[in-house]
Every structure is written in structure tokens, then in C-alpha cells.
């Protein structure tokens, strides 16, 4: 059968913890989640790990492997350096519940702060018309499986608890960008300016486009290039373009 590998898995809860060591069998084609499950079934039945689909589609099994934010189910053992211990730790940006399971409620709170899609008035269901090229931009962002690895890796949030109230993080700034680019979103007609909200309510200015979020995205969404930078550009247009500012001032007076 397979090789033996050495795993170091962080175990503990919100009061603290330490690494536990496991020597465990690894077979051809297996992913890290398979090995965690083997440890559960044979050595540590109460080892806590969150997972669902085991196919990279639900974004539940987020953790850090050798310090890198990854999905446990999409990290093949063959891609890790052979003969070295494999270190598995919970996501660092969120409070630990137990072992590899973290409290990700921060993300669900942020999701509820983004004003929902506003359907256009007077367009009946069935009468929505959009061109493929126009929906494609937002469709890229809707590939997001909400694994929150981008939130975990973002240096604005990681180790900066104090930024959390003011900063939605890449996942939810991307959600704002998605709605802003939705061809039929009627938020503006309701007096909601999504660009302004991105800057004033969701903390877009904190982002200094280091692209860490894009690097860890298991869906390969170009979060920085396609969502955050264009959103920043539109905010700049809105807030700092001298012509627009003059027009605004004129309309106010």
C-alpha cells in the first residue's frame, strides 16, 4: 500500500492548544482531507474538521497547510514536499472553535451589510434581457464558493482585529463590484450608490492591491485585477474627478 507520512495537526480550542503528531498512511492520488479523515477514523475520532462536498465546490474545508491558506480537499498529497512533516492549522484570521474549525461568522455578518440586488422597476419576471458579454464580468465573481481563504490571507484582516469592523474584506468588496456591474441592478434608482458604499461603508480604501487574495483563490477568480482595481477606479472617478465634482457641486447649489 501507500507511504507513511508525518502529520502535525493543530488541536485545541479558543483557550489554546498545541500540535498533535500523527504517522499515517498515504495512498496514490489522495488529498490532505483524505488523510485528515484517516486520522479521524483510526487515531483521533473527535478531531474536528469542517467539510462537505470533497470536490472543491462548497468551500467548507478551508485551513492552512504548511502555513498556506488552502482547501483541504483540493490539495493533493503529491504536491507537497516529500519526507517533510505536513503541518495543518486552522485559518488564522478567524477565532478557533475547535481543532481545524474556525468561527467564520464575521463573513456572514459582512455579507448582510452589503445592500442586496435591487430589481428594476417595471420589468416583469421573464422580461429580463441581458447580453452575455455584460453578465460575464459579474459571473466571474459569482464563481466564488465562499471558502473565505481570501479573507483569511488578506493582511488588512490577518492579525489586525481592529480593522474588522470597518473592512468587508476582498470577498465582500468583490460582491459590491459584482452588483455594481450587474446590468440590471437598480440600486442607484433607490438612492444607493454602490461605489460610494464600497469606499464609505465597506472600507475599499484599506485594500492596497497586494493581490494575496487572488493568489489563494481556489476558483482562480482575478479578485484584485477584475473586481477591486476597477471598483477603485470607479470610486476615484466618482470622488476625485474634478469635472464630476464640479457637476455635483453645481447640481447641489
Amino acid at each position: 500500500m501507500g507511504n507513511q507520512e508525518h502529520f502535525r495537526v493543530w488541536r485545541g480550542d479558543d483557550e489554546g492548544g498545541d500540535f498533535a503528531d500523527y504517522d499515517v498512511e498515504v495512498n496514490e492520488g489522495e488529498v490532505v482531507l483524505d488523510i485528515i479523515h484517516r486520522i479521524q477514523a483510526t487515531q483521533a475520532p473527535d478531531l474536528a474538521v469542517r467539510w462537505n462536498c470533497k470536490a472543491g465546490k462548497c468551500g467548507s474545508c478551508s485551513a492552512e497547510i504548511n502555513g498556506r491558506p488552502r482547501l483541504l480537499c483540493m490539495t493533493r498529497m503529491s504536491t507537497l514536499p516529500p519526507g517533510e512533516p505536513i503541518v495543518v492549522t486552522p485559518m488564522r484570521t478567524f477565532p478557533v472553535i475547535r481543532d481545524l474549525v474556525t468561527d467564520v461568522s464575521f463573513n456572514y455578518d459582512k455579507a448582510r451589510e452589503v445592500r442586496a440586488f435591487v430589481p428594476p422597476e417595471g420589468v416583469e419576471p421573464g422580461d429580463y434581457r441581458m447580453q452575455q458579454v455584460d453578465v460575464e464580468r459579474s459571473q466571474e465573481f459569482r464563481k466564488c464558493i465562499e471558502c473565505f481563504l481570501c479573507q483569511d490571507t488578506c493582511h488588512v484582516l490577518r492579525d489586525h482585529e481592529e480593522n474588522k469592523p470597518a473592512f468587508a474584506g476582498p470577498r465582500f468588496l468583490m460582491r459590491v463590484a459584482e452588483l455594481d456591474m450587474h446590468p440590471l441592478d437598480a440600486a442607484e434608482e433607490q438612492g444607493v450608490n454602490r461605489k460610494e458604499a464600497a469606499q464609505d461603508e465597506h472600507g475599499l480604501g484599506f485594500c492596497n492591491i497586494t493581490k494575496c487574495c487572488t493568489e489563494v483563490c481556489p476558483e482562480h477568480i482575478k479578485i484584485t485585477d477584475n473586481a477591486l482595481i476597477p471598483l477603485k477606479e470607479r470610486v476615484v472617478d466618482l470622488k476625485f474627478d474634478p469635472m464630476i465634482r464640479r457637476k455635483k457641486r453645481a447640481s447641489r447649489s
Partner: protein
Amino acid sequence: MTEIERLSYDVIVIGAGGAGLRAAIEAREQGKKTAIISKSLFGKAHTVMAEGGCAASMGNVNDKDNWMVHFGDTMRGGKFLNNWRMAELHAKEAPDRVWELETYGALFDRTPDGKISQRNFGGHTYPRLAHVGDRTGLELIRTLQQKIVSLQQEDLAETGDLDARIKVFAECTVTDLTKDGDRISGALAYWRESGRHLVFEAPAVILATGGIGKSFKVTSNSWEYTGDGHALALRAGASLINMEFIQFHPTGMVWPPSVKGILVTESVRGDGGVLTNSEGKRFMFDYIPDVFKGQYATTEEEADRWYTDADNNKRPPELLPRDEVARAINSEVKAGRGTPHGGVYLDVSSRLKPEVIIKKLPSMHHQFKELADVDITKEPMEVGPTCHYVMGGVEVDPDTGAASVAGLFAAGECSGGMHGSNRLGGNSLSDLLVFGRRSGAGAAAYIDSLGDQRPSISDDDVQIAARRSVAAFGDGGQEGSENPYTLHQELQQTMNDLVGIIRKQEEIQEALDRLEGLKARGEQVVVEGHRQFNPGWHLALDLRNMLLVSECVAKAAILRTESRGGHTRDDYPTMDAEWRHVLLVCTLADDGTVDVERKEQIPVREDLLDLFESDELGKYFTSAELSGRN
């Protein structure tokens, strides 16, 4: 025992997949205070795994499509065992349910004139599946999730509380339903995080817990699919139908072993992919069954022309309903014409340009590259059948989703009838929406009918249920100490080997014997550790449900002495019209075993029968049933 927290709602929805969320939206929009209880985090439900699309006869790509054609395809797919009223409602209402999603913000792929694009799929006469690449289920879940947030934002504006009228209880598991006399009165649950119990007082409970696939070894289903709703319904006194019908999806990954069973979407075939054996032969032409003769292409040339000219050519047999394709693959492998890893080849690389494959099948490209080191734009995939869907489920009233117990409702995969003996691809997402909404409305109407006669939950019931749920920690009078992981593996192996895609009397009997042993050992399960996020404990509780539901599957399977849809008997290989009008109904006896009874189906309404040629009906119905028709 410590005091258990009590919460009061009008409706609780168990399960946060497509059916549960759509039901909750409806209940909330009808003014009912609604709780959604989910074993997982919000937005992780198994619905995200649905790839191909959502079937609805909008006629955007081929304007010949309409509800009657969709109804006919659904009945054919289910070998006419379907609850015809459900199939009718489903076909009629699916377009409205899809269009409604656009008003929630969904972004489907488009046709050149800006409408929702629709794709071909097995068993569907016309391109019918609304889709987003091959991640349609994710779009559906996210859209419904975001609609719920939208409703919560409305409630915040009005009441100052986001959770005032609709609240999500994530990572919370229901272990038992409670009753006040004959009526449902609520549910007992525990938080996965802390292990603490809580009680939901509610006159109406909607089950939307999905399927049972985790009782099988090779499955496309996620860990949550442990038949919870099926088991909760049984224990509350409701009945299950059609439990012998399990859909094995023809194309699951077969290699590497750790990903065996993961789904390969039917869209691969809908978009032009072909199945070949180790001799390079497109074998599906040899497997067109009599009932579908004349409806499918018989030569490769005609099949290939169909992709560009569907009106003048017949469709390729790779697009037969799933049960037919799964059996064909099984036969090829058994005959020694399989691939090195025990599957057959599914190839798009020789059929479509790489950039088209990446555009139309991005998740498949990604999945094979990351998990199997296979580039599907350059080489064929290896695929084989995987346990995918249970047609059977809670017996419900088609119009309201009401089960036989007052106050209990069910929708989606955990309800039964809609798909008959075999579900067509794409009919699951539309089923969730149509019957999710109907069950939400059904629950709301039921509550209105109660007036102030609302049921209550007795403390004794709560304490008994709570004690039972923690029995696995060792105070349940166990003499041995069984490991839940070991029992689960044995159950999966048993169901896979003995009540799998091809069945026979002796094997099912052996499965029943083994299940009895597993059930006894299940009483002896002991888990280590404490109640805080303890997966061993969670599995021990899920195992109780899986064992009960597996017993239903095996007991129904041994009684049905014919082959139909998702039930293939080696010893009774043909379809028998005398079985078409018979349902096998499972209930729970007082001694905790499953009883199965035969029940006659309600005859199909005449105007619906008129939608079919009498030649075709003759293949499915008895002559007595058709007498008096011309």
C-alpha cells in the same frame, strides 16, 4: 438535566439547500416567522454540486418547447411511475420559478437575443436547462441565500432586527421531531459547535434535507446526505414511497481512488462528449431499449448531425435517461471492455476545441486537472456509475407538500413521487424551486387553519429525546464499544455491493441480514471526547438515520420483482406493467422495524394521458388500464 433553550417559530425548515431556502422564502413572504436549520454553514448545501442546469420549458432556444413536452419527457424518464400531478405542476411552474430567480439577482448564461440560454440534456426533447456554465447549483444556492439576506435587510429597516422574521441556524442538527397528539409541535436540535441542545416550538415543519447517498460507498453526495428527513418523517409516523429507486449517475470519476464517485456533469454529453469502451467503440448505440426505439439516432453520423440540426435528426443515445446509460456502462465494464481503472472513456477532447471546452465546462476542466492530473481538452476522462439521487422519499400531497402527519411537509429530494422510478437530469433544481415554494405556501395555509389551537411540546418529550441523542457518550447502557466510523464503512460496503445498481433476491436478503446486525451494533456505539464539535458523535447520530433508511431501500427492493428506472433486478430483468401502478409504502412499526405495504397509484388523468401516442402508452400500461381509450 440542564434547562434547554426554547425558541418559538411558525415554520421551521430543516435543510438549507434549494428546496429549504425556497420554502423559507415563501413562508416568510406569507408573513410566517421562519427558522432555517442547517447541518452546515449557510450556502454550503449539496445543491451547490448540481452542475448541468435547471429544466424549464421557457422555449428560449427552441420555441417548440412547452410544459406538455416537459411533462411527457419527465413521465418517460420516470417510466410512468411518477406522481402525475407533481410532474404536471412541475412542468407548468418551472419557467416562473426560474424567471423569479432573475428578480433575486441570478445571472444565467444568455442567448444572443439576451434571454436565458438553455442546454440539451439526457431525456429532454429540446434544449431546456437554464444554466451558468457547469456551476448552476452554486448560482441557485447563492441567489436564494442572497434573497434571504435581502428579506432580512427589509426586516432590519422595519423592525431594527435582521433576524426578526427569518433566521438561519447554521451548523445546527435536528435529531427528533416532537408531536402534540397527532400533530407536529416542533423539533429538538443541537448546536454542532457546543453540543448544546435547543428546542424549536413550531406547528409546521418542512423537511428539505436532501438524499441518502452517504449510505453507499461510491457516491457523488456530500457527508450531509444521511437521510435525516426520511428518518425523521418515519419516526414521526409519516410514510415513504419509492425507496427502492436509487439513481446511479452514469458518469462519476473512477480514479484516483480518493475521488471515486465525484460527479462528472451530464453536460459533457449534452455538449458533444461521447462514451467509448476500451476497443474504441461508441457502445451506447447497442443499448437503446425497446421503449425508446425510434426516438434516438442509430448511427454515429445521424447522432453527430443532431448537435447542429436537432430538428431533422435524432439525438445521440449517449443522451438516453441516466438509468439506461448507467446500466450500459456497467455492462461494458463487466464484459471486460472497461478502462484500466474500471470505467469507460468519456471524451470531449476529440469533439470540441480546447477553448470551447474551457468555456462550457470550466469546473470539469478544473476538477480533472486538479484531482486526477487529466487535461480534458487533450485526453478522455475515465468514468463509471456513482450513487447520485434517491427518487424515493416522504409521501406528500402534490399541491401542498403535506405529509400524512398534520403539520409535517417535505420538498425536494427528501420527498417522493415527482420523479417516478428515475429522475431526468435538470429536473432536480426545478423540483426544488417548484415544490419548495409550494411546501412553504402549504405550511403557511396550514398555520392559518389552526387559529389559536397551536400545539405545544411537553418537557418529558424533550428530556427523552435529549437523553437519546447523547446516549453514544456511554450512558446508553452499551455493553460493547462500536466505532461509528467502522460501522459506517461496513454499511456503505453492504449497500454498494448488495443493493447497488444491479440487484438480486439472494443479495438483497443478505443485505437485510447484515443490516440487522449493523442495527444491533449501532446500539453499542460509543464515542470519545466531549460534545463540542465532535465529528464522531455527529456520525453516530447520522448513522441511526442511515441504517433506518437503508432498511427501507432494501425491503422495498426485495419486494419489487421487476426492473424499472433506478431499480434493476438481475432475476427480474424486464419491466412489468402490473408494477407500474403499484407504490411500495414504508412506515415504521412499533418495534422499530420498517413495514412495507403495496398501494395503488391514482390513475393518470385522462387529458394528461392524451398527450401520448397510444403505441407508447401500450409499452408501459396494462391493457385493462387503457381499455376504453381509442
